[in-house]
C-alpha cells in the first residue's frame, strides 16, 4: 500500500505536469496515442522476449518523433496525423496480442495498470521521470511559456521553438512509458488530461496552473486509492472517476465562467 501511495504521488506529478502542455497546446489526443504506442511496444517486448519497458519506451518515443515533424511543419492536420498513428498503434497492439500464446492476463494488466502491486523498479523509474519532468519545466519555464502562448512568435523572437516542442513530446512519451505498468494505458490519459483541465478552469497564471494541476493529480490518485480500498473497487477506475469529479467541480466553480454571466447582465442594446 505504501508503494501504491508513492506511485500515485509520482505518477500524479509527472502526468499532471505533462498534462498542462497537452491541454494548453490543444493536443489532448496525443496522450491516448502515445499511451497506445507504449502499450503496443510493451506487448512486442513480451512477444519477442525483451524488456517490455524498453519496447514501450521505443514505441512511444518513436511515435512522438513522427508527430513532432508533422506538428512543426504543419504539413498535415495534427489531429488527423495523431488519429492515424493512434489507430495504427491499436492495430499493432492487437496483432501482437493475437500472436501471443497462452493467457493474456499480463497484457491486460498493462491496460488497466496494477498500482496496488507496483514493483520497486517501476517506482524508481517513475521517480526519475517525475523529477526530470519537474526539473525541465523549471529550467525551461520561459521558453515553454513562450511556445505554449504562440509557436510562431516564440520562433520570431529567437527561441528554438522546435527543440522545445520535441522536448515536450519526449517528456510526454517518457511519462507515459513509465506510468504504463503501475498506472495502466487507459488510466494515464485521464491522469494527464483531467488535473490540467481542472487547473485550467481556475487560474490565469501558468505557474499556478502547473502547481494546481500537480496537486489535483496527486489528490486524484490518493482519494482514488482510498475509495478503492473502502469500496473494494478497482483502483485504476476509482482514480479516473475521482479525477473526473475534481474536473467537474473545478468547471462548476470556475471564475473564468463567471465572466460570461456578468456579460449577460450587460446593458440592453438601444433600438432606434
Amino acid at each position: 500500500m505504501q508503494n501504491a501511495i508513492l506511485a500515485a504521488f509520482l505518477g500524479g506529478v509527472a502526468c499532471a505536469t505533462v498534462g498542462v502542455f497537452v491541454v494548453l497546446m490543444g493536443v489532448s489526443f496525443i496522450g491516448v496515442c502515445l499511451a497506445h504506442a507504449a502499450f503496443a511496444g510493451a506487448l512486442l517486448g513480451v512477444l519477442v522476449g525483451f524488456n517490455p519497458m524498453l519496447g514501450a519506451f521505443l514505441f512511444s518515443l518513436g511515435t512522438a518523433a513522427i508527430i513532432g515533424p508533422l506538428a512543426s511543419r504543419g504539413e498535415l492536420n495534427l489531429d488527423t496525423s495523431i488519429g492515424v498513428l493512434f489507430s495504427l498503434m491499436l492495430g499493432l497492439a492487437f496483432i501482437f496480442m493475437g500472436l501471443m500464446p497462452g493467457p493474456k492476463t499480463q497484457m491486460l494488466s498493462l491496460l488497466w495498470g496494477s498500482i496496488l502491486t507496483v514493483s520497486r523498479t517501476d517506482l524508481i523509474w517513475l521517480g526519475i521521470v517525475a523529477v526530470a519532468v519537474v526539473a525541465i519545466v523549471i529550467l525551461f519555464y520561459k521558453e515553454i511559456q513562450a511556445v505554449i502562448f504562440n509557436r510562431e512568435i516564440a520562433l520570431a523572437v529567437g527561441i528554438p521553438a522546435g527543440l522545445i516542442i520535441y522536448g515536450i513530446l519526449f517528456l510526454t512519451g517518457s511519462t507515459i512509458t513509465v506510468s504504463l505498468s503501475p498506472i495502466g494505458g487507459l488510466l494515464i490519459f485521464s491522469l494527464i488530461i483531467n488535473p490540467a483541465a481542472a487547473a485550467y478552469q481556475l487560474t490565469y497564471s501558468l505557474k499556478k496552473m502547473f502547481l494546481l494541476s500537480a496537486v489535483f493529480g496527486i489528490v486524484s490518485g490518493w482519494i482514488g486509492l482510498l475509495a478503492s480500498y473502502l469500496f473494494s473497487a478497482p483502483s485504476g477506475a476509482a482514480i479516473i472517476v475521482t479525477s473526473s469529479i475534481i474536473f467537474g467541480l473545478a468547471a462548476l466553480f470556475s471564475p473564468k465562467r463567471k465572466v460570461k454571466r456578468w456579460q449577460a447582465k450587460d446593458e440592453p442594446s438601444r433600438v432606434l
Partner: protein
Amino acid sequence: MRNNGDFTNTAVKIERAVVSYREHVALREVSLEIKKGEFLGIIGPNGAGKTTLLSLINGLGKLVQGNVWVLGHSICRGSVNGIRKRVGYVAQLQNIDPRMPITVREVVMVGRYGQLGLFRRPHKTDQTVVNKMLELVGMSHLANRPIGHLSGGEQQRVAIARALAQEPEMLLLDEPTASLDWRAQGELLDLVRRIHEIQNLTTMFVTHDLNALPDICDRLVLMKEGKIWQQGQPEQVLKQDILSQLYDAPISIQEHEGRLVFLKAG
C-alpha cells in the same frame, strides 16, 4: 560577403530571391535593398508575396534560390536565430483563447526571452524594458490582465510592445491593422509612426489595405504575382491608373482633409 563595410547603411539586401511552397512559387527572383532608418511600405493584392517577403527577413521563410542579407549577416541555415533576436515581428491579429493563462506583461516579456538565452531568468533590467514599452504603447494599465481579455486593438499594441521589448533594429509589421475597427486602426498607425521615429528603427509595413498605409512611408514597393511590380516614393506610385492595374480593380483616389483616401470605383 559577411560583416564587411558594404552594409553600413544597408539594413536588408535581397538578391534574386525565389521562394516556393510545393507547386506554388510565392516569390519570383525578387531583389530589394532597404536603407537603415527607412520606412518601407509594401502593398499589393492578397497572394502577391508580401508576407513571404517579410518572412525572408526574419528567417521564417525558406529561400530556394538567391541571397538575403539582414543587418550585415547572410541569412542561411544556423545563423537565423541571431538575426531574429534583432528583428521585431508583428503579425495580424490572432485568435487568442480568452482563458489562456498568460498576462499582458508576460507576453511582452516573451520579447526579452530570445535575447536572454536559455537557462537565464529575466532581471530587473528586463522588467524595466518591459515597463517602458508597455508605457510607450499605452498599455501599462492593463499589464496584469490575461492577454485573451483585451480587445483586438489592445492586443496589437501589446504585440508591438513585445516586438519592441526585443530592442530590435528592424520592425516588421504584417497587416497589423487588419480586422481592427476604425479608431483602433488610426491609433495603431499613429503609434507605428511615433515608434519608428523615437526608436530609430528600420520599418517594413505590409498591407493590402491602401487606407491603412501610414503616411510616413519613405518608399512604397508594389507587389503582384510574386514580383516587385513597381516601386517609388508614395507620390509617384499612388496614382489611380497604377493602383487600378495593381489590384485589377478600378480604384479612385480622393483627397480629404489633406490625406489621400482610396475608394473602389465602379
